[in-house]
C-alpha cells in the first residue's frame, strides 16, 4: 500500500456499521439474522466476532464483505457505502479491497499452492508469471517456501489454511475477512494459523475481521465483539479475555 492509503487509513475507520439488520424471508418463515448491529473496526487491528452457532457472525461478515446485502442500516468500508453500490461496483470493490479466508480453505486442487495464491492477482489482470512469482514470495512469507509447486491436495489442513492466508494477502487488500479459519484444524494448528494471521495479515493499513467460536484463539484478537441472537452484546479488548 502506498503512503496515500496509509494516510487515509489513519484518518478513517476500516468498517462502520450502523443499525444493520438482515432478515431472511422464505414462504413459511422469517429469520432475523442481524437485529441492529453497531460497531466500528479500525485499520491495524484484528477484530474477532465471536458467539454461538447461529448468532449471525457469518451473516455479518458476509454483509461487511459485500457479498450479501443488509436489509437495513448503513455499512461503510473505508468510507465507501458498499450497500449503495451496483453489483458490478461491489464486485470491483471486493477485488480491490477485500481478502478472504474460508473455513474450508476453498483452494483449487488442480492448481499449485503458488498458483492458488496468484488467483486474486490474475483476477486483477496481473500477468501469470508475475502473479505466480508473487505467490511464491507470499508462500515463503507464510513459511511454505518448499511447498510452492505442490497441489493443495498434498498439504495438511494447516498448510492449506496458510496458503489461503497468503492468497487473501496477495492483492494487498485493506480488509481481510476470515470465516472460522481454525474450525477445520486441530487446536495446535489453529493457534499457529492465528499467529500467522496476527503477524502477517494485520498491518497498519489493514484490518482483519475473524469470525470464530473457538475460544482458544480469542487471545489473538485486539478486540472481541460478542454476538448473540443477531446482536452484538459486548465489545471488549482482547487483553481483557481471561
Amino acid at each position, binding site marked *: 500500500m502506498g503512503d496515500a492509503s496509509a494516510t487515509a487509513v489513519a484518518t478513517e475507520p476500516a468498517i462502520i456499521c450502523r443499525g444493520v439488520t438482515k432478515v431472511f424471508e422464505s414462504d413459511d418463515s422469517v429469520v432475523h439474522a442481524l437485529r441492529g448491529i453497531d460497531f466500528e473496526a479500525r485499520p491495524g487491528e484484528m477484530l474477532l466476532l465471536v458467539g454461538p452457532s447461529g448468532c449471525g457472525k457469518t451473516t455479518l461478515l458476509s454483509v461487511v464483505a459485500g457479498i450479501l446485502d443488509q436489509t437495513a442500516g448503513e455499512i461503510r468500508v473505508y468510507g465507501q457505502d458498499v450497500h449503495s453500490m451496483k453489483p458490478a461496483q461491489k*464486485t*470491483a470493490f471486493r477485488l*480491490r479491497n477485500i481478502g478472504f479466508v474460508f473455513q474450508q480453505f476453498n483452494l483449487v486442487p488442480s492448481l499449485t499452492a503458488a498458483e492458488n495464491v496468484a488467483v*486474486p492477482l490474475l483476477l486483477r489482470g496481473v500477468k501469470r508469471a508475475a502473479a505466480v512469482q508473487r505467490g511464491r514470495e507470499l508462500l515463503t512469507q507464510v513459511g511454505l517456501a518448499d511447498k510452492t509447486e505442490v497441489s493443495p491436495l498434498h498439504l495438511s489442513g494447516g498448510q492449506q489454511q496458510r496458503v489461503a492466508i497468503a492468497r487473501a494477502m496477495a492483492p494487498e487488500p485493506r480488509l481481510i475477512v476470515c470465516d472460522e479459519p481454525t474450525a477445520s484444524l486441530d487446536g495446535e494448528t489453529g493457534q499457529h494459523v492465528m499467529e500467522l494471521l496476527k503477524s502477517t495479515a494485520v498491518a497498519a493499513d489493514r484490518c482483519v475481521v475473524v469470525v470464530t467460536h473457538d475460544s482458544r484463539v480469542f487471545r489473538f484478537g485486539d478486540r472481541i465483539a460478542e454476538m448473540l441472537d443477531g446482536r452484538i452484546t459486548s465489545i471488549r479488548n482482547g487483553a481483557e479475555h481471561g
Partner: protein
Amino acid sequence: MIYVAWRMLTGDRAKYLSLVIGLAFSVLLMTQQGSIFTGIMMRTFAMVTDVSAARIWVMDPGVQYPDDLKPMKDSDLSRVRDVPGVDWAVPLFKSNGRARTADGNFQTVFVFGLDSSTLLGGPREFVSGKLTDLWTPDSVLVDEAGARRLNVKKGDILELNDRRAYVAGICKATPTFTSFPIIYTTYTRAVKYVPGDRRVLTFVLCSPKDGLSDAELSARISKATGLAAITKDQFIERTLRYYAKNTGIVINFGMTTLLGFVVGLAISMQTLNAFVLDNIRHFGTLKAMGATNFTIAKMVLFQAVVVGLLGYGVGVGATALFGNTAAKNSPQLAFKFTPELMLIAFCAMTLLVAIASVLSIRRVVKLEPAIVFRGS
C-alpha cells in the same frame, strides 16, 4: 483466468477424460448412426452415381427410382438421339435375373446390359479383368461383393437364367439397396439372358453437346419424346423422395438416428453440467474474491469449448475408425461418413456446447457468493 479454467478442467485427469469421452461418445452416436443412415440411403441411388458418364437419364415417365423397371420401346433410343443438342445417347438395360450358385442354390441378381459398342455406363474399377473383356462371347462382369456371394471368380462359368455366362472379370460397384449381386454384360446379350418382355430398353443415357446445359437438354428431350428426361441430381432427388414417401426407412431409421442425437445431447449436457456443479464452490470463491460474472462465463465457456472440440475430434475419429474397420470386415455394411455429416455433427456439438454453457453460466451467475462462507 483462462489458464485457471484450463487447469480446473484438466487438473483431475479422470474427470477430464470422462468428460471428453462422454462427449466423444455422443458424437460417435450421432455420426455413426447418421453414417449408416446415409450409407443406406446412398445405396438406393447407387446405380445413378456409379454410371458417372451419363449426365441425363431418359426413362418411362412412371419410373420413380432406379429399381423401378418400366421398359420403353427400342425405338425410343432413336427418338432421343434425334433430339437436337444430344451429343450421344446409349441404351441401358436393367432387369432382375436368377443366377445359380456353385452350391446349387439360386440367387436373384441385377443384370445390366451396356451399349455393346461403347460399353458406356459400365464399371470403372476392376479387381480382375477389364471392361472390354465383355466383348468376349458369353462374358459377364460380376461385382466384388456379388462374386463373393455367388462364389465365383474370373474364369468361372455361371448359370444365368439357365444360360451359360463366362465370368470375364470382377469389378467394383456400390452395393445396391437390396444387396443383390450385379452382373454387367452387353445390351444384346443381356436381352437374351433375361428374355420375356417385348419392351426391354430400361434407360437411355445421354449427354448434351458443348454449350447446352443438362437442364436445357432434359427439357428438350421430355418435350420431344414425352419420356422423362432428368439430370443425375434430379434422379437422385426423385429416388430419395420415393423412399422417403413410400418406405418406412426414413421414419424408422431416421428415428434411430434422431435418438442417437438426442441421447448424445443428453449425455453431453449432463456431463458438462455435472462438471460445473463439481466446481461450483470454486466459482463461488472466485465470485466472492471479485471475479465478475463475465470472467466466470468466459471460464465456463472456455471449458465447454475445449471439451466440445476434443470430444468432437475423438468422436469423429472413432466414427471414421469404426467405418474403416467395419467396411473392411463387412463389405455389406452401408456406412457413408460424409463431410456434410461431419458438419452436422459439428453444428450439433456447437449447439450442445452453447446450451450446456448457457445453463451452466446461468447457474454460476445466479450463484450467491455467500455460499462460500458455509462450512461444509
